[in-house]
């Protein structure tokens, strides 16, 4: 059975791109969220194997969302999607419970490597 993914990003462009990379690699994107709040809700209902999480989103940022999700599901496998210059935020996300990160602009191979590490 394919492993399931929840893609969280406020930009449709990014969501589409990440979904494409992951579905081509055989993952099943079961949901998308465009805010932290949605990410938390959808995690609860979908229980995906993997979450990709943007850092800056409206209605609760990615870091708070990680914190919120990990509070009830410490086993959650969350991959942060960050941009250059967000290192401090990435560190904060890691401390909140994120399992790995990728840096934009995304190279499909790097994204998949990180996904593999998170799911290992």
């Amino acid at each position, binding site marked *: 059975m394919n492993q399931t993914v929840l893609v969280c990003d406020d930009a449709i462009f990014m969501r589409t791109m990440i979904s494409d990379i992951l579905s081509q690699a055989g993952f099943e994107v079961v949901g998308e969220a465009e805010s932290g*709040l949605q990410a938390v809700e959808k995690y609860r209902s979908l229980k995906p194997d993997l979450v990709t999480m943007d850092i800056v989103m*409206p*209605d*609760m*940022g990615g870091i708070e969302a990680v914190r919120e999700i990990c509070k009830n599901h410490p086993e959650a496998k969350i991959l942060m999607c*960050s941009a250059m210059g967000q*290192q*401090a935020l*990435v*560190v904060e996300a*890691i*401390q909140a419970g994120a*399992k*790995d*990160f*990728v*840096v934009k602009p995304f190279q499909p191979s*790097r994204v998949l*490597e*990180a996904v593999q*590490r998170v799911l*290992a």
Partner: protein
Amino acid sequence: MDLSKYAALFLAESREHLNACNGSLLEWERAPTSLEPVDRLFRAIHTIKGMAATMGYAGVAQLAHAAENLLDAIRHNRVSADPAIFQLLFRVVDTLGGAVEAADGTEQAADADLIAELNAAALASQGTRTRAEANPESDDSQALPTSPPIPESKLRRATDAPRSRPVQVVISRGAAMRGARAALVLRRAEAFGAVSGVQPPLAQLERDEFDGRFFFRLQSERPEQEIEATLMAVGEVQSVQFEEPALGGDAGGPRRQIRVDLRRLDALMKQVGELVVAKNRLAALSTEAGDAALIELSGRISRLVSSMQAEVLASRMTPVGEVFERFPRLARDLSRELGKQIRFDMEGEEIELDRSILDEIGDPLLHLIRNAADHGIEPPDQRVAAGKSSEGRILLSAARERNTVALRVTDDGRGIDRARILAQAHREGVAADEVDTLTDDLLVRVLARPGFSTAGTISGVSGRGVGVDVAMTRVRALGGTLEVRTELGRGSTFLIRVPLTLAIVRALLAEAGGERYAVPLAYVAETVEFDRRAVTSVRGRETLVVRDQVIPTVHLQDLVSTRKASRSARQPTVILEVGQRRTALVVDALLGQQDIVVEPFDAPRGLPPFIGGATILADGKPALILDAAALL
């Protein structure tokens, strides 16, 4: 070195200790199973030994050493105290007394016969020990009937952390955000055990100011291969080695340490502080002058000063364990005095704090631990009646949280009765009548009122409130905060949060009413723009909605001047965060970040409480430092 001038001191102090030895011996002889006299005796003899050795009085030192060996054997149940042993020890004290008086630096022969007797008595233990080692499980049970084990040594054994091993990790070249990668490695390592001594410190890693190589200590007994495999699996990790870091050219060699007078470090710190101010000023001037060579040089000096500052700060960092050390004994004494069963545990002893803060933190912790033992933990019968185990638990823990260290004193006792405190707060006019719920914030403010006590009877140990009052004052003086969480019947946690270091802090500069203010970055959550449209009113108070969070606002200009601030549609706003509490501080302008040196500050009368200190900025002009906690 000329030691003669210390001779008088040696003599006076040794006499004192020997007097105490006689007292301890008498007490011990009356109650051969009591343990404290043995400990006191051991410590006194040990002190004399150390002093004598330093003075070059070999005879005294040898005798003291032999006596110490015997006492140690007794402490560890390898020898039991009988009348012959007491007699022997009395003779040792007498002989030491004579030797101390006679010692004058000329070679004094040790009393060889007495030493031989001591060795023989201690040797009896060797046999016992060998037997015990052959059959370790029977060790305690065999020894118990004659002389019960000493609780303190037990305690020490219980808190003995597993071996802390050095770990050196290199992040691959070309990895993105190596600092964040390092944070992942640390996070993963924490699953094995406590992580400490991260070098370079996390804040520096976060800014990517390292060459991919970092170091930390890990308390874990897991096999190296397992740790290595797990850390390598983090990804983009080039190597994991279990070695001490190379210092300078001394590659891989053991760390070498020297003792330095703390005053030297203080002086160094102060001078580096001034250097930082001068550096900032130089940077400002060279930018003004627009001379490229000057700007480059200033940049270089700036980097050098920054790394020097980091080194000086690092040299002052001391594990909190140094202050924690005395608390197990305190807790044990308290539990006896109060007739309660208390288990005392400690965590995070390896967390480091600036020496100057560490020195100040002992007292507040002492008060909080006393409070927990006296008012938190219930007597055994009450605990059992409430369905708890008869033994109460107090946990003292330290943890690094961002740029602060959080020290928690947690008990599983009765908790604080909010209704009772609120009633008393109403009676004393601390809380307005319409206040009908006591939040944790209000509770701690009420508890910290000088003289506020709800203890039905004030015991010799503490009266709740007095301790909190003292703790609060000390902690605030350090730029820290005190918080409380409590649940009736379940227990309380007092949380002290202090900055990692005093002296130099990174601050955000803001302007209001034509004056400049520095806000320590440790308490800045973020900056946003004050947007008229995002303002609502909650219970008559202006609040700002930031990403669905309602945050009360404070206009800095309203606080500092009589002129009411004009409410422009958009104004820069600093979101202050202390623990869970937030406030939006609206200012006229934000002027960027700067390292500021906190100057000692004698607050003039009538100074508002939210002014926490003063500093000199890069342009040589003064600015006031805001105390974030007081603005919330």
